[in-house]
């Protein structure tokens, strides 16, 4: 079966690629597109390490066919910083040591950014439940949750 030609936008850049019909978006990102920030931790949507957004909606890229990207806007971890300027979440994660091995970090950051875009003032419980699909084995989540909430507070302050 011939490959499918996909025209899409990734991190704001118009992008074209070829994919096998059965190929997942995660495989396309990590393969032909060279965007290895999204990770495969499980391939079955249980760990969130492959998180991206599609038209601003948080999804697991392992649960999406690459062909579905046609005509949509994909955002990955690689688009979160603006050149040298880190997103406040990225900066806060570094300051509060909210990562150890770092493998879950891209997925967590994409998910957390999505949360704060929808809910700029989440409670601790809301943060925890929003991030329940992002497994971390190193940190016990404590510093991750603190980093998200502190960033939210700072972003609210900056917006005033």
């Amino acid at each position, binding site marked *: 079966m011939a490959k499918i030609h996909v025209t899409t936008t990734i991190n704001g850049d118009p992008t074209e690629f070829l994919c096998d019909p059965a190929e997942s978006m995660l495989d396309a990102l*990590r393969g032909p597109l060279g*965007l*290895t*920030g*999204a*990770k*495969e*931790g*499980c*391939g*079955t949507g*249980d*760990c969130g*390490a492959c998180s991206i957004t599609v038209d601003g909606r948080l999804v697991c890229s392992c649960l999406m066919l690459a062909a579905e990207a046609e005509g949509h806007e994909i955002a*990955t*971890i*690689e688009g*979160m*910083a603006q050149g040298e300027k*880190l997103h406040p979440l*990225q900066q806060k*994660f*570094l*300051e*509060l*040591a909210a*990562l*150890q*091995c*770092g*493998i*879950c*970090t*891209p997925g967590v*950051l994409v998910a957390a950014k999505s949360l704060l875009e929808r809910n700029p003032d989440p409670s*601790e*419980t809301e*943060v*925890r*439940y929003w*991030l*329940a*699909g*992002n*497994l*971390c*084995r*190193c*940190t*016990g*989540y*404590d*510093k*991750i*949750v*603190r980093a998200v909430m502190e960033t939210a507070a700072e972003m609210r302050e900056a917006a005033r």
Partner: protein
Amino acid sequence: MNDQSNKWIGKRTIRPDGVDKVTGRACYAADNSMPGMIWAKVLRSPHPHAKIRSINTAKAEALPGVKAVATAKDFVEFPIDTAVPLGIQDMRWMARNMLAHERVLFHGHPVAAVAATTAEIAAEACKLIEVDYEVLPWAVEIDDAIAPDATPLFDHIQFEGKPSNIAGKLEHKKGDIDAGFAEADVIIERSFTTRPVHQGYIEPHACTVSVAADGSTTIWSSSQGQFMVRAMTAYLTGIPQSDIRAIPAEIGGGFGGKTIVYLEPVATILSRKSGRPVKMVMSREEVMRATGPTSGAKMTVRIGAKKDGTLVAGHGIFYLQAGCFPGSPIRGAAGCSFTPYAIPNVLSTGYDVVCNRSKVAAYRAPGAPIGAYGVECVLDEVAQAIGMDPLEMRLKNIAHDGTKAVHGPVFQSIGFAQTIEAALKSEHYKTKLTGKFQGRGVANGWWFNAGGESSAQVNITEDGNVVVTTGHPDIGGSRASIANITAELLGIDYDRVSVLIGDTATIGFSNLTGGSRVLFASAMVVTESTEKVIEQLKQRAAKIWGIDASAVVWENGEARPSGEHTGNFPTMTLAELGAKANETGGPIGAGSQQNTTGAECGFATHICDVEVDVDLGTVTILRYTCVQDVGKAIHPAYVEGQMQGGVAQGIGWALNEEYIYDKQGRVDNPSFLDYRMPVCSDLPMLDTIMVEIPNPKHPQGVRGVGEAPLVPGPAAVCNAVSNALGIRFHDLPLSPPRIVAAIDANMKQAAE
């Protein structure tokens, strides 16, 4: 180096590798590609135990796109009855673990591997490999493996004169337990079981290997030890170590599970045969079926105490599942569980049981959480029987400097008592629980901690900055701590220090990342190297000033003339001396290689509060505090991180994590859906109290911290649930059906 004057040690600096990790730039093993790369897949055994009569790979090799096939025939031969030690492993078992030799010993055991131009073709080719199996009887659980009619897995493994699945025994003895128990006012004896649990690293094993036509081999892999990767690959392929360059990628978690290899030697064979770089990545299912979880266990613990709370005797018998090859962590179970206590009479015996399950791999203080589960639960009951506070009773009996440990050494400069005292004084412990079905549990945990070989190189750049190369994969933020130490020693800004992890070609031998030793060992060699560099800097300044080097002092990042020359010359900064390096004698840099010693043990006290929904059997962790003797916390945030991570793993081990096997001897839950690790919403904030008793044998007072945080967890949680319900639990995990069944049984009993 005293605390008040520390500029970097003890500070929460930003880790050198951090920006790459928060932007997705950091390169993990599966992120790597090499030109001309092909993909490999593994064919795995469908049987838990079978003889391999023959393997026919002809059809696979003929499939278009297939470039190479590997089986055990391609490995160097290691006869099954001759031990070949490498570190704590035995290469005859490692060889068979990676590719089945005479028999397949567990469902999922690798039998062959295929490299092809695409992963799909490699997978298709695997299906074309014809294996003729003669199915054999199998046993997964300890009781089945040691039953009188059980089939011994290995003829040459004998116990008490006959072939047996008990492959080893370890015993620690102190005093006379019979005499000890005779003095006891209270004796509690209980039997416990725990299930196998997996380290749960989010990153599956992965590697890319390229073998050139002359045999020079480059390995890029996710591992906790590039020197181990090189060595094991050399042993199994016959390629000399000097021809193998093993590069550690950033590692996405290990917890001990990546202190051995599964893929690299296989990929090396395939690359050698095909002449192409070969990439191998495990799926999550492969990780769960075929990489070592830790042992399941059954144990009996008996402890005797006097009315006043003095412990007089302790007896533990621990059976641990090794999986299909010998080597379960009985050393941790038998050797750590009674150890932190000054009990005069102890007998602690561990039995290593082989069975048809994947070979065990190290998991964060291997064996110790298992032994601690039994001992700390019994200690809790002893305290209850005597009517003493569980922490006070532990404090009363805790080892002090000068206590002889049950495994031999005499404790020196330990902080066990201080840790328990800090727990007793903590706000958490002083806060009373007021809700229904709420309970509190405590437990202690002890771990050896290791020293071992480490190498480092410290070089000064021409623009006066510092590049430090160390030898251990950074699994939790150690680069940040090394940068703190180096900046502190040199008296320069933290940002001027770059820390890299070398590979086997670019840094000297360094032992595994594990054993809570990375910072301990690498800090020692980095310190020695930096001190040599400082001597060089002083000599260069002396040369420039025309004075004796002994009259130069290095302070605050500068060389300063002292003694009779005080004030005679303006100071010279690192930048200035760096710029003049070549004209004053050449490059400024130094290395160090040591077999570091003086690692002191780790100890933690946990306090856990839970609430039980008695109708559903679910347990909510309300509050958790980990108190630990952490030595000098070079980077407090990463020390806290180790504590919090270990706590989360302990909670998972206690409540919901377990390997479930079906009736065909296969893992029934090989995914993160049904292998239930704690998710973000399962946990509260995890509080930490760091008790800093510096290790006097280390230049910065470092004490390993990575493993002790897991050891008390399962017991602390179990004691908490017991306290909440007034029911004792002896089997982990405390899954909801188990809790409900226990509550129902208890109510029935109460009614009768």
